């Protein structure tokens, strides 16, 4: 396949950046999208040009590190991660535009690499059950209905890639935040800190500069793990009820 790549290049966080067009040839349909990028980088290196920097690690769709905005979609045209996107999803002669995630809370580090530490800080604000190692009850002392466990699992499958933020017209992190709040709100282990968690995580999400939710559903449509909008509704419920009921003035 012969392709034209329009890629965002930006030397560092303070550089203005811009698109650079690269023609590329000899791409096999069996390649993954990132392998196509590897080929480009080998070619650039051969010409003594700086390779295109992009985040990636596991290349099996689970670590959440890859993050390219391809032809107007986070992770490209399929509902999967960029590393699981294959070149057979494109046609010979295509022009492919590749950009970094765009959000104030995800500043560009270089080229297509962004800083998603804001997600870590949201989790640090309360995305955990406060138990120390040791001294916990036997695992089977807390029976959990299978349906609840399964539903909590659905929320827990979030890989923290940030596609929801990238897809949202408001760069909102509600799907990400709500997935964690939901998981722990559904499970008995999460009950003790349920209210504080919702309050703190939402406050941190706002402090990071993410936008609000317009319920467009773009996040759900683009999420590689199919995290559902019901999580956002549940987060809202949790947040309202926490605001009214909690003792935190």
């Amino acid at each position, binding site marked *: 396949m012969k392709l034209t790549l329009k890629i965002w290049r930006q030397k560092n966080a303070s550089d203005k950046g811009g698109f650079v067009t690269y023609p590329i040839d000899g791409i096999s349909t069996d390649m993954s999208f990132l*392998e196509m990028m590897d080929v480009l980088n*080998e070619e650039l290196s051969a010409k003594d040009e700086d390779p295109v920097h992009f985040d990636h690690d*596991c*290349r099996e769709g689970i*670590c959440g590190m890859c993050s390219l905005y391809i032809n107007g979609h986070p992770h490209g045209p399929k509902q999967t991660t960029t590393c699981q996107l294959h070149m057979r999803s494109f046609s010979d002669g295509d022009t492919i535009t590749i950009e970094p995630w765009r959000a104030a809370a995800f500043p560009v580090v270089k080229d297509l690499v962004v800083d998603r530490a804001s997600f*870590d800080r949201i989790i640090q604000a309360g995305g*955990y059950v406060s138990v120390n*190692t040791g001294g916990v009850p036997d695992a*089977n002392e807390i029976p*959990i209905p299978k349906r609840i466990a399964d539903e909590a699992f659905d929320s827990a499958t979030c890989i923290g890639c940030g596609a929801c933020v990238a897809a949202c017209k408001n760069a909102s992190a509600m799907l990400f935040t709500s997935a964690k709040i939901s998981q722990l709100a559904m499970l008995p282990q999460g009950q003790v800190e349920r209210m504080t968690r919702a309050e703190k995580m939402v406050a941190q999400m706002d402090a990071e500069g993410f936008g609000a939710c317009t319920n467009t559903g773009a996040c759900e449509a683009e999420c590689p793990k199919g995290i559902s909008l019901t999580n956002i509704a549940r987060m809202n419920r949790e947040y309202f009820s926490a605001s009214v009921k909690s003792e935190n003035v």
Partner: protein
Amino acid sequence: MILDSKSPIGPLAEKWTKHKFNSKLVNPANKRKYEVIVVGTGLAGASAAASLAELGYKVKAFCFQDSPRRAHSIAAQGGINAAKNYQNDGDSVFRLFYDTIKGGDYRSRESNVYRLAEVSVNIIDQCVAQGVPFAREYGGLLANRSFGGAQVSRTFYARGQTGQQLLLGAYSALSRQVANGKVKLYPRTEMMDVVTIDGHARGIVTRNLITGAIETHAAHAVLLCTGGYGNVFFLSTNAMGSNVTAAWRAHKKGAYFANPCYTQIHPTCIPVSGDHQSKLTLMSESLRNDGRVWVPKTVELAQKLRKGEIKPRDIKDEDRDYYLERKYPSFGNLVPRDVASRNAKDVCDEGRGVNETGQAVFLDFRDAINRDSEEAIRARYGNLFDMYQQITGENPYQTPMKIYPAVHYTMGGLWVDYNLSTTVPGLYSLGEANFSDHGANRLGASALMQGLADGYFVIPYTIGDYLAQIGPSPVDANHPEFAKAEKGVKDAIQQLLSIKGSKTVDYFHKKLGHIMWEYCGMARNAEGLTKAKGMIQELRAEFWKDVKVLGANEELNQTLEKASRVADFLELGELMVDDALNRSESCGGHFRLESQTPEGEALRDDENFAYVAAWEFMAENAPETLHKEPLVFENVKLTQRSYK
């Protein structure tokens, strides 16, 4: 130096309890005066950092990824073993211990493995308390499955994403300590060297991957939880960033490297599709429960397949060779990983491989679909089939899957004693980065167990003993050794940048991977290994003459990161070959062609090789010194594995 495993004496079941009692404790008020560095934030690193911070130690946690949650533990699919005996099917701590020792082909330390089995039950309790959503039965209690041919159902799982859920649990505990101010997190920071003062580890040198800043960090102890080195093969199921650098630099600072040649080759991976391939994807082993492995009986048919002249379904049953069922009638397609892998390689070497590269065998679900219906198969393996189709573009319901073995896990690693201490006092190694519990072959669902056991339940006890002995006085961050180590790192980086050669880093990495796979992979012999040693030495020399690393240090420079890692792989590769040469027996995932039974099966040599090979670094480009830790088996009887 004599290798002292520090295994406590006394009955197996009492060793750990006794050892915990005999370990010195750190006064609670003093704990905050101790600083501990944890490198790596996977299962071992995150759980250790969180647990130590909970105890009151001041922890610094480092990872090269942008977030601790991305560590490659996240990719583990299958499950985690624990001797809970919830299923009432006869499991016990001793049985888990026994299975693990036997599965490791009697090349692991009894005391460590027993402790692993012992604390396995606590891991499940801990994870459930954190909110890890394990699979459950309708009654609300935890579900188990049997995994990797085990005769009891002791594997806890969270769909096919157990590693992810466990890691997110550990990551949440870590995040909580970050919020408490007990852990300081350093993401996108790579450890470049260990700083030793008077023979004790007292800090590390790091590179900030965004700014290129080289910094030093002082601490009372350093924990390396940096995973395995499977990427020495270039193609593996490891993440692209997985590397040996932290462990290797520690090795060069005095930590012995144990059993480097023990690598696990996983039989069910998606085959290589071409030169562009950057990594291999594992398909869960559970597929072999229903899939039948075969290749055509004749080379002619295989050639026709490769050229696309015939389709797999055109080949009649009498022209198919279900070689695992033929050779191992009692285990059939469910033989252990090493046996399945080796046989796949054998039939492909005979020219009967089934894809364009000739490096694949079929895993066929036709009979299972005919027997149980497509719906039933979809319910069991739907997500795996989807994944396969996404990657290969082929529909496994209609045409057989193609699979091939790939490097998956490395049992070797830094030598550690019962306390998880390396041969450098104050330097610890946890999880896949150490060599400790899996012997020559790791059982399925054991890696997650070991990472979390080390981090949650072993290191919090054993590190106290050391810290109490050295006392809480602060480590002098201005000691000349820090400046020296920092300069060494800077010089090495400058050297890489100044070569300005003509070949890319990937060129060398791929070449190294090819040598390792060809000569130090599933089956090895002295001749090939000797040849490989020379090839690696040449390649390394060429690397330092002709590698091209563009850009500067003071920026995000992924080429430089890779170059520095590949430089270490080029040294490790040779040590692996040395170790493989030394170990002229077949055991576990390590098959020496010179050592086989008349039927062509692996032949272990307990008389000469029942030891841990721990290698000591002497000097650059000089042979390493072999130290042997004899393995004493007091509680199990050594038997030859047979799957006929």
